Every structure is written in structure tokens, then in C-alpha cells.
């Protein structure tokens, strides 16, 4: 599934024009990205949470040449699925 599939779905279910539905999807993504960019986590109940974590600098090694180099401190986005969703998937996995 790609973005266009979600746009189509919103278009049909909400009765919006293609442009309007497309704008809804683009802005949902933009708002989430901006929040994470500011270091603010995003919590969607029933779905999950995105958090920004700071990682410390550490020594890395090129596995081929064994050269050591420093991996710079960085910020990464991590997604934690909600317990509700995890339980739904767990049930599905054990059905049949």
C-alpha cells in the first residue's frame, strides 16, 4: 500500500475531491513530521507512538578494513505500537 491508496480511500469515504483528500494526507504527514522534528513525540491511541531518542556518540568499525571511526551523536525516530494493536495482531496470529 502506498500514499495514493490512502488518498483514494479518504476521497471515497469522506466524499472529498481528489485534491482535498490528497491535502489531508500530505498535511497529516507534515504535522507528524514537524512535531518529531521539534523533538515532541506523537501518540495515536489504538495505533502507537513515535518518539525521538538521542543516541550518544560511539566507536564504529568498518567490518571490512577494521578501521575505527566515531559514529556521531544523533537523534532517531522510534515507533512503539500500542498494546491495543499488539493484542489485535496477537489474536489474529493465533486464530486458525
Amino acid at each position, binding site marked *: 500500500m502506498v*500514499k495514493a491508496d*490512502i488518498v483514494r480511500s479518504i476521497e471515497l469515504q469522506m466524499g472529498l475531491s481528489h485534491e482535498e483528500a490528497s491535502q*489531508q494526507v500530505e498535511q*497529516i504527514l507534515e*504535522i507528524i*513530521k514537524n512535531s518529531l522534528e521539534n523533538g515532541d513525540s506523537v501518540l495515536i491511541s489504538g495505533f*502507537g507512538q513515535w518518539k525521538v531518542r538521542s543516541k550518544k556518540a560511539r566507536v564504529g568499525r568498518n567490518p571490512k578494513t577494521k578501521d575505527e571511526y566515531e559514529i556521531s551523536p544523533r537523534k532517531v*525516530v522510534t515507533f512503539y505500537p500500542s498494546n491495543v494493536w499488539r493484542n489485535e495482531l*496477537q489474536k489474529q496470529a*493465533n486464530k486458525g
Partner: protein
Amino acid sequence: MNKSQLIDKLAVVTNQTNKVAEGSVNIFFGNIKQALSSGDKVEIRGFGSFFLKKYESYMGRNPKTGAKVLVPKKNLPFFRAGKDLREKVNE
């Protein structure tokens, strides 16, 4: 930021009612969940991708008591941030 704040912001920037924004947000996340449930993966350029990992059941142990327990099989969703999001967050 939580879901209702996302809905409020979406309504403002797209100049739509809160009802429309709420519907869009629910369809957006509902579609991702449905796709993963049906074995599909979701790829959104610049944002990231969602995929499901399948884990078989195995015999585990309660680390406290040492008792054997069967850990049932499970499916877990994963998200990998896309290039644009990774770079934006790390700036």
C-alpha cells in the same frame, strides 16, 4: 502531540471541519492497520514504511521461577523512518 491535537491542527491548516479532519485521520491509521493485517506492507515516501514481522511460538522460561512457559506466536508491526524524516529529526 496526541490524536485530537493532530485532528485540530489538520482542520486548521486544510481549512476543513473537525469532523472531516477526524474522519481523514481515522481512515489514515485504519488503512495502515488493515494493510498490515492482510499481509501487505505500507510505504510512504519521505515518511517511512510499516511492515509486519512474524514470530513463531517457542518454549520460554519465567526468569523468576524457571518454570517453562509456551510463548504463543505473534505478529508485531515495525516502522522504519524514511530518509526525509530521518534527516529532519537529526538536524
